C-alpha cells in the first residue's frame, strides 16, 4: 500500500493534482445541484400557490 501512495516518489504532485480535480469538480457539482434544488423548490412552491389562488 505504501508503495502505491508513494507514487514512485512523486506522491505530492500526483495526489495534489487529483485532489484539485476532486475538490473543484465535486464543489461545482454540489453547488450546482444545491442551487437547482433550492430554486426549483421555490419556483414549484410559487406555481402551486398561484394555482391554488386561481
Amino acid at each position: 500500500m505504501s508503495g502505491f501512495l508513494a507514487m514512485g516518489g512523486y506522491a505530492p504532485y500526483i495526489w495534489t493534482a487529483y485532489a484539485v480535480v476532486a475538490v473543484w469538480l465535486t464543489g461545482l457539482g454540489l453547488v450546482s445541484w444545491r442551487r437547482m434544488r433550492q430554486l426549483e423548490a421555490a419556483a414549484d412552491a410559487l406555481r402551486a400557490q398561484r394555482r391554488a389562488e386561481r
Partner: protein
Amino acid sequence: MHRFANPARFLRLARLIQPWTAAAMFACFGVGLYLALVASPIDYLQRDTVRIMYIHVPAAWMAMQTYAVIAVASLVSIVWRHPLADVAARAAAPIGVAFTAICLITGSLWGKPTWGTWWVWDARLTSVLVLLFIYMGYMALWSAFDDRQRAARAAAVLALVGAVNLPIIKFSVDWWNTLHQPASILRRGGPTIDPSMLKPLAVMGLAYLFFFITVLLMRMRADLAAQRLEAAAERRVMAQEVPA
C-alpha cells in the same frame, strides 16, 4: 411570452436523462480512477507523473469541447433566437472555467517535477490560459447587464467572435512558442502515448463528458427556475402597481 418557448419539454427531458448521465459519470470516474492510479503501467520515461496526464489531458479536451458547445449554442441563439440556447450557453461557461483551470493546475503540477518550475510558457498550456481568460470575459459580460435579453445577445456575439479567434490565437501562440523555442525543452506527452495508456485516458474523458452533461442540465434547470421566480416577482410588482 416566447421566453418560455418549450422549457416544459426540456425540463421533462432533463429530469429523465439526468440520473442516467450522473450514474454513468460516477461509473466512469470509478473505472477511470482505478485504471489511472492502479492498473496502468508506469511510463518508462516520466515514471509515475504520467498519472497526472490522465486527469490533465481530458480536462484540456473538455475545455475545448465546452467552448464548442457555447459557440454552437450562441449560433443557435442568434440564428433561431431560441431562449434555451442562451440558457445552455450561460450554464456551460462555469463548467468550462472548471475544466480549463483544472487543466492548467494539473499541467503546472506535472511541469514541476519534469522541469523544476511551476509554470512553463508551453504552447498548449498558454493557449489554454488564454481560453481561461476568454471564458471569464464571457461570464463577466453575462453579469454586466440587468436586461437578460441584451445580455444573451451580447454574450452570443462574443462567444462567436471568440470561436473565430481561437484558431488564430492557437496559431499565434504556437508561432510565438517556436520563435522562442530553445531546442532543449522536451516536447511533453506528445504522440508517444502507447496503447495501454489510451484506455484510462478514454474512460476519464468519458467521465468528464458525463460530468459536463449532468452539471450542464442542473445549471440549466436552476437558471430556468430562477427566471420563473424573476417573472413571478415582476408579476407581483405589476399587480401592485395597478390595484385590482
